[in-house]
């Protein structure tokens, strides 16, 4: 089963994306707690795209596509902005950052904590793709 929404790159659309993913997840029988975790991870990914890939310029597309089967719930988020290097944000820095009152990397750390798999890829010269996957055993 596949569901898709395309929104413009403004933070006012985060609520639209959250509602879309929440509705799809709950309708497919995923429990509320897991749904909340997936939705927050998607919010963080879209926020990163708006801030970093599109540099806070609105009117660019963010495509959010949900692919699901009995084994997994996968959200694929595509943008056409600047390339992003996920390795530039290291998980191990987060506690040190907190102690030093630095807020960098919070969103990336949350994403990686909330779902089972986070995968970043780039189609060179075209688009960035983030895959957030929750597996069901």
């Amino acid at each position, binding site marked *: 089963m596949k569901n898709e929404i395309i929104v413009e790159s403004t933070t006012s659309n985060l609520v639209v994306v*959250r509602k879309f993913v929440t509705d799809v997840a709950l309708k497919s029988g995923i429990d509320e707690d897991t749904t909340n975790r997936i939705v927050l991870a998607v*919010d963080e990914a879209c926020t990163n795209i708006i801030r970093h890939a599109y540099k806070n310029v609105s009117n660019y597309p963010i495509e959010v596509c949900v692919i699901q089967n009995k084994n997994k719930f996968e959200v694929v988020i595509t943008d056409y902005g600047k390339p992003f290097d996920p390795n530039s944000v290291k998980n191990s820095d987060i506690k040190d950052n907190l102690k030093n009152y630095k807020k960098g990397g919070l969103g990336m750390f949350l994403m990686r904590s909330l779902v089972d798999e986070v995968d970043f890829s780039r189609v060179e010269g075209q688009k960035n793709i983030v895959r957030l996957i929750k597996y069901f055993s």
Partner: protein
Amino acid sequence: MTNFKINFRENSDVQIIDLKGYLDAHTAPEFENAIQQIINNKQYKIIVNCKNLSYISSAGLGVFMAYIEEVRKNKGDIKITNASPKIYNVFDILGFPMLYEITKTEEDALKKFSRRI
């Protein structure tokens, strides 16, 4: 459509901010302005009451971090109270309980401020 509201209260020298609704990258600047406004008035004892907060993302969490150093330098603090399990879970994932006082009730947070004097 706004789905976030901030209310200000005072209890002696402690400033209390009530958050309501959804705190994300869209609404975080509003929260940032609220704390900035308090600090501009040279008030550094702040309680953030999350009783009616339905959602928080890292943009909201970043606001707590942006001001905590300045507030503590001025012998104040930002204490967090009344967070629902859903909200507390997000604080917990990021290790906030190690660095911030998170209390169950507003009274507990007020007591902690009065003990420090």
